[in-house]
Protein backbone atom coordinates (compact mmCIF):
# COMPACT_ATOMS: atom_id res chain seq x y z
CA UNK A 1 0.00 0.00 0.00
CA UNK A 2 1.62 3.19 -1.21
CA UNK A 3 -0.16 5.44 1.23
CA UNK A 4 1.22 3.55 4.20
CA UNK A 5 4.87 4.47 3.40
CA UNK A 6 6.55 6.46 6.11
CA UNK A 7 7.34 9.95 4.89
CA UNK A 8 11.04 10.83 5.06
CA UNK A 9 10.93 14.27 6.55
CA UNK A 10 7.77 14.17 8.64
CA UNK A 11 10.06 14.55 11.66
CA UNK A 12 11.99 17.55 10.39
CA UNK A 13 9.18 19.56 8.77
CA UNK A 14 8.23 22.55 10.89
CA UNK A 15 5.31 21.42 13.06
CA UNK A 16 2.00 23.04 13.92
CA UNK A 17 2.36 26.00 16.28
CA UNK A 18 5.60 27.27 14.70
CA UNK A 19 5.58 30.78 13.20
CA UNK A 20 6.08 30.28 9.46
CA UNK A 21 9.49 31.71 8.41
CA UNK A 22 8.98 34.65 6.09
CA UNK A 23 10.46 34.56 2.60
CA UNK A 24 10.43 36.39 -0.66
CA UNK A 25 10.68 34.35 -3.86
CA UNK A 26 10.32 35.01 -7.56
CA UNK A 27 7.07 33.87 -9.17
CA UNK A 28 8.04 35.27 -12.57
CA UNK A 29 11.29 36.84 -13.84
CA UNK A 30 10.14 40.26 -12.64
CA UNK A 31 7.71 39.53 -9.83
CA UNK A 32 8.36 38.39 -6.30
CA UNK A 33 5.95 37.07 -3.71
CA UNK A 34 6.54 37.81 -0.05
CA UNK A 35 4.83 35.47 2.37
CA UNK A 36 4.11 38.13 5.00
CA UNK A 37 2.01 40.05 2.45
CA UNK A 38 -0.67 37.44 2.95
CA UNK A 39 -0.96 38.06 6.70
CA UNK A 40 -4.64 38.23 7.59
CA UNK A 41 -5.67 35.21 5.57
CA UNK A 42 -4.77 31.51 5.62
CA UNK A 43 -2.05 30.39 3.22
CA UNK A 44 -1.42 26.94 1.77
CA UNK A 45 2.23 26.23 0.92
CA UNK A 46 2.60 23.24 -1.39
CA UNK A 47 6.26 22.24 -1.71
CA UNK A 48 6.88 19.70 -4.48
CA UNK A 49 9.99 18.14 -6.00
CA UNK A 50 9.88 19.29 -9.60
CA UNK A 51 7.85 20.77 -12.44
CA UNK A 52 6.92 18.22 -15.10
CA UNK A 53 7.31 15.06 -13.01
CA UNK A 54 4.07 13.06 -13.39
CA UNK A 55 2.84 13.03 -9.78
CA UNK A 56 3.51 16.74 -9.36
CA UNK A 57 1.55 17.41 -12.49
CA UNK A 58 -1.45 15.55 -11.16
CA UNK A 59 -1.14 17.15 -7.73
CA UNK A 60 -0.91 20.67 -9.13
CA UNK A 61 -3.72 19.93 -11.62
CA UNK A 62 -5.91 18.87 -8.71
CA UNK A 63 -5.15 22.04 -6.70
CA UNK A 64 -5.76 24.09 -9.83
CA UNK A 65 -9.31 22.74 -9.97
CA UNK A 66 -9.78 23.55 -6.32
CA UNK A 67 -8.93 27.23 -6.36
CA UNK A 68 -12.57 28.20 -5.91
CA UNK A 69 -12.75 25.95 -2.83
CA UNK A 70 -9.62 27.51 -1.38
CA UNK A 71 -11.04 30.93 -2.16
CA UNK A 72 -14.29 30.12 -0.37
CA UNK A 73 -12.19 29.22 2.65
CA UNK A 74 -10.35 32.54 2.28
CA UNK A 75 -7.02 30.90 1.56
CA UNK A 76 -4.20 31.67 -0.84
CA UNK A 77 -2.33 28.77 -2.49
CA UNK A 78 1.40 28.97 -3.31
CA UNK A 79 3.31 26.18 -5.05
CA UNK A 80 7.07 26.01 -4.34
CA UNK A 81 9.87 23.99 -5.93
CA UNK A 82 13.55 24.50 -6.68
CA UNK A 83 12.83 24.99 -10.39
CA UNK A 84 13.69 28.37 -11.90
CA UNK A 85 11.19 30.99 -13.04
CA UNK A 86 11.43 30.10 -16.74
CA UNK A 87 10.73 26.47 -16.04
CA UNK A 88 7.82 27.42 -13.75
CA UNK A 89 6.47 29.75 -16.42
CA UNK A 90 6.46 27.09 -19.08
CA UNK A 91 5.00 24.43 -16.75
CA UNK A 92 2.33 26.78 -15.51
CA UNK A 93 1.39 27.79 -19.05
CA UNK A 94 1.25 24.19 -20.26
CA UNK A 95 -0.95 23.05 -17.37
CA UNK A 96 -3.02 26.26 -17.33
CA UNK A 97 -2.29 26.77 -13.65
CA UNK A 98 -4.01 29.76 -12.07
CA UNK A 99 -1.93 30.09 -8.91
CA UNK A 100 1.68 31.21 -8.41
CA UNK A 101 4.60 28.80 -8.53
CA UNK A 102 7.54 30.15 -6.55
CA UNK A 103 11.16 29.48 -7.49
CA UNK A 104 13.21 28.32 -4.49
CA UNK A 105 16.15 28.58 -6.85
CA UNK A 106 18.78 30.95 -5.46
CA UNK A 107 20.20 30.13 -3.01
CA UNK A 108 18.90 26.76 -4.05
CA UNK A 109 16.36 25.25 -1.70
CA UNK A 110 16.86 27.90 0.98
CA UNK A 111 13.16 28.18 1.79
CA UNK A 112 12.67 24.40 1.67
CA UNK A 113 15.50 24.11 4.20
CA UNK A 114 13.92 26.76 6.43
CA UNK A 115 10.76 24.64 6.54
CA UNK A 116 12.72 21.42 7.07
CA UNK A 117 11.63 19.81 3.85
CA UNK A 118 14.75 19.79 1.63
CA UNK A 119 15.98 16.45 0.26
CA UNK A 120 19.74 16.85 0.38
CA UNK A 121 20.69 13.84 -1.69
CA UNK A 122 18.47 14.79 -4.60
CA UNK A 123 18.56 18.54 -4.20
CA UNK A 124 14.79 18.98 -4.37
CA UNK A 125 11.94 19.75 -1.98
CA UNK A 126 9.88 17.11 -0.30
CA UNK A 127 6.26 16.83 -1.29
CA UNK A 128 5.18 18.81 1.77
CA UNK A 129 2.09 20.77 2.69
CA UNK A 130 1.79 23.59 5.21
CA UNK A 131 -1.41 25.38 6.12
CA UNK A 132 -0.73 28.73 7.82
CA UNK A 133 -3.33 30.64 9.79
CA UNK A 134 -4.12 34.32 9.32
CA UNK A 135 -1.38 35.23 11.84
CA UNK A 136 1.25 33.39 9.82
CA UNK A 137 1.57 30.49 12.25
CA UNK A 138 1.71 26.93 10.95
CA UNK A 139 -1.60 25.28 11.73
CA UNK A 140 -0.94 21.95 10.03
CA UNK A 141 1.89 20.35 8.13
CA UNK A 142 2.32 17.11 6.31
CA UNK A 143 5.08 15.41 4.34
CA UNK A 144 3.93 12.90 1.78
CA UNK A 145 6.00 10.03 0.40
CA UNK A 146 7.69 11.77 -2.51
CA UNK A 147 6.03 9.64 -5.19
CA UNK A 148 2.53 9.90 -3.77
CA UNK A 149 0.06 12.65 -4.54
CA UNK A 150 -1.12 13.76 -1.08
CA UNK A 151 -4.36 15.09 -2.51
CA UNK A 152 -6.26 17.87 -0.85
CA UNK A 153 -8.36 16.24 1.87
CA UNK A 154 -5.90 17.25 4.61
CA UNK A 155 -5.64 20.84 3.36
CA UNK A 156 -9.40 21.22 3.25
CA UNK A 157 -9.81 19.79 6.78
CA UNK A 158 -7.18 22.20 8.10
CA UNK A 159 -8.72 25.21 6.35
CA UNK A 160 -12.20 24.28 7.57
CA UNK A 161 -10.86 24.00 11.08
CA UNK A 162 -9.35 27.50 10.79
CA UNK A 163 -12.65 28.81 9.51
CA UNK A 164 -14.54 27.26 12.41
CA UNK A 165 -12.05 28.79 14.87
CA UNK A 166 -12.58 32.21 13.32
CA UNK A 167 -16.35 31.85 13.48
CA UNK A 168 -16.16 30.74 17.11
CA UNK A 169 -14.26 33.93 18.11
Amino acid at each position, binding site marked *: *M*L*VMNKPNHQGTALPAGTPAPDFSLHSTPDQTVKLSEFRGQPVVLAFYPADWSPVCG*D*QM*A*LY*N*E*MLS*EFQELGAELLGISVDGVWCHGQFSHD*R*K*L*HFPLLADFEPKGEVSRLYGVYRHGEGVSERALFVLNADGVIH*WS*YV*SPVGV*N*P*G*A*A*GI*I*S*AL*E*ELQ*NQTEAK
Partner: protein
Amino acid sequence: MKPEIPDSIPKSKLTLPAPGRDHIQGPKNAPIMLLEYGDYQCPYCGQAYPIVKEIQKRLGDRLCFAFRNFPLANAHPYAEHAAETAEAAGTRGAFWEMHDLLFENQDALDDDALAEYATALNLDAPGLIKEVVAGAHKPRVREDFRSGVRSGVNGTPTFFINGERYDGSPDVEEFLAALTGSA
Protein backbone atom coordinates in the same frame (compact mmCIF):
# COMPACT_ATOMS: atom_id res chain seq x y z
CA MET B 1 -17.24 20.87 17.11
CA LYS B 2 -13.69 20.76 15.84
CA PRO B 3 -13.31 18.54 12.83
CA GLU B 4 -10.63 15.88 13.14
CA ILE B 5 -7.53 16.52 11.10
CA PRO B 6 -6.28 13.24 9.74
CA ASP B 7 -2.67 12.40 10.66
CA SER B 8 -2.17 10.85 7.32
CA ILE B 9 -3.57 12.00 4.05
CA PRO B 10 -5.04 11.19 1.64
CA LYS B 11 -8.04 10.29 3.69
CA SER B 12 -9.44 7.29 1.96
CA LYS B 13 -12.91 7.05 3.47
CA LEU B 14 -15.86 8.22 1.53
CA THR B 15 -17.35 11.39 2.99
CA LEU B 16 -20.60 11.41 1.03
CA PRO B 17 -22.05 7.90 1.16
CA ALA B 18 -25.63 9.19 0.66
CA PRO B 19 -27.32 6.40 -1.25
CA GLY B 20 -30.15 7.76 -3.32
CA ARG B 21 -28.30 10.76 -4.72
CA ASP B 22 -26.14 8.72 -7.06
CA HIS B 23 -26.59 7.22 -10.48
CA ILE B 24 -26.39 3.49 -9.91
CA GLN B 25 -26.44 0.28 -11.90
CA GLY B 26 -27.38 -2.91 -10.08
CA PRO B 27 -29.43 -3.54 -6.94
CA LYS B 28 -28.98 -0.74 -4.40
CA ASN B 29 -28.77 -3.31 -1.57
CA ALA B 30 -26.12 -5.39 -3.38
CA PRO B 31 -23.37 -6.71 -1.07
CA ILE B 32 -20.64 -5.04 -3.12
CA MET B 33 -20.75 -1.32 -3.76
CA LEU B 34 -18.31 0.07 -6.32
CA LEU B 35 -18.10 3.82 -6.76
CA GLU B 36 -16.03 5.53 -9.44
CA TYR B 37 -14.94 9.16 -9.50
CA GLY B 38 -14.24 9.82 -13.15
CA ASP B 39 -13.65 12.35 -15.90
CA TYR B 40 -15.07 11.69 -19.37
CA GLN B 41 -12.02 13.16 -21.08
CA CYS B 42 -9.45 11.33 -18.95
CA PRO B 43 -7.69 8.58 -20.93
CA TYR B 44 -7.22 6.43 -17.81
CA CYS B 45 -10.95 6.56 -17.14
CA GLY B 46 -11.44 5.53 -20.74
CA GLN B 47 -9.19 2.53 -20.13
CA ALA B 48 -11.08 1.65 -16.96
CA TYR B 49 -14.47 1.82 -18.71
CA PRO B 50 -14.39 -1.66 -20.36
CA ILE B 51 -12.87 -3.10 -17.18
CA VAL B 52 -15.82 -1.87 -15.14
CA LYS B 53 -18.19 -3.32 -17.75
CA GLU B 54 -16.43 -6.68 -17.48
CA ILE B 55 -16.61 -6.60 -13.68
CA GLN B 56 -20.31 -5.78 -13.82
CA LYS B 57 -20.87 -8.70 -16.17
CA ARG B 58 -18.98 -11.12 -13.93
CA LEU B 59 -20.50 -10.03 -10.63
CA GLY B 60 -24.06 -9.51 -11.86
CA ASP B 61 -26.53 -8.75 -9.09
CA ARG B 62 -23.86 -8.93 -6.39
CA LEU B 63 -22.60 -5.54 -7.52
CA CYS B 64 -23.99 -2.05 -7.37
CA PHE B 65 -21.95 0.43 -9.44
CA ALA B 66 -22.17 4.18 -8.99
CA PHE B 67 -20.47 7.00 -10.89
CA ARG B 68 -19.59 10.49 -9.69
CA ASN B 69 -18.01 13.30 -11.66
CA PHE B 70 -14.48 14.49 -11.07
CA PRO B 71 -13.64 16.64 -14.10
CA LEU B 72 -10.17 18.22 -14.19
CA ALA B 73 -11.44 21.03 -16.35
CA ASN B 74 -8.18 22.93 -16.87
CA ALA B 75 -6.36 19.83 -18.05
CA HIS B 76 -9.37 18.52 -19.97
CA PRO B 77 -11.28 21.40 -21.57
CA TYR B 78 -14.27 19.25 -22.60
CA ALA B 79 -14.63 17.34 -19.34
CA GLU B 80 -16.92 19.77 -17.54
CA HIS B 81 -19.56 20.04 -20.28
CA ALA B 82 -19.36 16.30 -20.86
CA ALA B 83 -20.08 15.68 -17.16
CA GLU B 84 -22.94 18.17 -17.19
CA THR B 85 -24.33 16.56 -20.34
CA ALA B 86 -24.43 13.17 -18.62
CA GLU B 87 -26.24 14.80 -15.70
CA ALA B 88 -28.66 16.54 -18.07
CA ALA B 89 -29.34 13.19 -19.73
CA GLY B 90 -29.81 11.79 -16.21
CA THR B 91 -32.68 14.16 -15.52
CA ARG B 92 -34.26 12.67 -18.67
CA GLY B 93 -33.72 9.09 -17.51
CA ALA B 94 -30.75 8.44 -19.79
CA PHE B 95 -27.70 8.93 -17.59
CA TRP B 96 -26.05 5.57 -18.27
CA GLU B 97 -26.75 5.66 -21.99
CA MET B 98 -25.01 9.03 -22.21
CA HIS B 99 -22.23 7.90 -19.83
CA ASP B 100 -21.46 4.98 -22.15
CA LEU B 101 -21.57 7.11 -25.31
CA LEU B 102 -19.17 9.64 -23.80
CA PHE B 103 -16.61 7.02 -22.79
CA GLU B 104 -16.95 5.29 -26.15
CA ASN B 105 -16.31 8.58 -27.96
CA GLN B 106 -13.66 10.23 -25.81
CA ASP B 107 -11.98 11.79 -28.83
CA ALA B 108 -15.07 13.88 -29.69
CA LEU B 109 -16.53 15.72 -26.71
CA ASP B 110 -17.06 19.27 -27.88
CA ASP B 111 -20.53 20.83 -27.60
CA ASP B 112 -21.47 19.82 -31.17
CA ALA B 113 -20.56 16.21 -30.47
CA LEU B 114 -22.48 16.30 -27.18
CA ALA B 115 -25.55 17.52 -29.07
CA GLU B 116 -25.15 14.65 -31.53
CA TYR B 117 -25.09 12.12 -28.71
CA ALA B 118 -28.21 13.66 -27.23
CA THR B 119 -29.91 13.36 -30.61
CA ALA B 120 -28.72 9.76 -30.95
CA LEU B 121 -30.43 8.99 -27.64
CA ASN B 122 -33.64 10.67 -28.78
CA LEU B 123 -33.24 13.42 -26.21
CA ASP B 124 -34.17 17.00 -26.98
CA ALA B 125 -30.64 18.05 -28.00
CA PRO B 126 -31.13 21.83 -28.26
CA GLY B 127 -32.87 21.94 -24.88
CA LEU B 128 -30.26 19.76 -23.26
CA ILE B 129 -27.29 21.70 -24.62
CA LYS B 130 -28.97 24.95 -23.60
CA GLU B 131 -29.13 23.67 -20.02
CA VAL B 132 -25.48 22.64 -20.15
CA VAL B 133 -24.33 25.98 -21.53
CA ALA B 134 -26.40 27.79 -18.88
CA GLY B 135 -24.67 25.72 -16.19
CA ALA B 136 -27.90 24.15 -14.91
CA HIS B 137 -26.10 20.96 -13.88
CA LYS B 138 -22.89 22.56 -12.69
CA PRO B 139 -23.83 22.48 -8.98
CA ARG B 140 -24.39 18.73 -9.11
CA VAL B 141 -21.02 18.15 -10.80
CA ARG B 142 -19.38 20.45 -8.27
CA GLU B 143 -20.98 18.55 -5.39
CA ASP B 144 -19.52 15.32 -6.76
CA PHE B 145 -16.11 16.98 -7.10
CA ARG B 146 -16.15 18.44 -3.60
CA SER B 147 -17.13 15.11 -2.06
CA GLY B 148 -14.27 13.48 -3.97
CA VAL B 149 -11.66 15.95 -2.82
CA ARG B 150 -12.70 15.44 0.79
CA SER B 151 -12.64 11.66 0.42
CA GLY B 152 -9.09 11.43 -0.90
CA VAL B 153 -9.70 11.45 -4.64
CA ASN B 154 -6.42 12.79 -5.99
CA GLY B 155 -6.84 11.98 -9.64
CA THR B 156 -9.00 9.91 -11.92
CA PRO B 157 -10.23 7.32 -12.00
CA THR B 158 -10.50 6.68 -8.26
CA PHE B 159 -12.58 3.76 -7.05
CA PHE B 160 -14.16 3.08 -3.67
CA ILE B 161 -15.19 -0.43 -2.73
CA ASN B 162 -17.82 -0.38 0.00
CA GLY B 163 -16.68 3.10 0.97
CA GLU B 164 -12.94 2.36 1.11
CA ARG B 165 -10.58 3.70 -1.53
CA TYR B 166 -9.14 1.03 -3.78
CA ASP B 167 -5.46 1.73 -4.46
CA GLY B 168 -4.72 -1.47 -6.34
CA SER B 169 -4.35 -2.13 -10.03
CA PRO B 170 -7.33 -1.66 -12.36
CA ASP B 171 -6.52 -5.09 -13.82
CA VAL B 172 -9.74 -7.16 -13.99
CA GLU B 173 -8.62 -10.13 -11.89
CA GLU B 174 -6.99 -8.07 -9.15
CA PHE B 175 -9.95 -5.73 -9.06
CA LEU B 176 -12.37 -8.67 -8.84
CA ALA B 177 -10.37 -10.20 -5.99
CA ALA B 178 -10.58 -6.93 -4.06
CA LEU B 179 -14.29 -6.62 -4.77
CA THR B 180 -15.25 -10.14 -3.79
CA GLY B 181 -12.94 -10.01 -0.77
CA SER B 182 -14.86 -7.01 0.49
CA ALA B 183 -18.30 -8.57 0.48
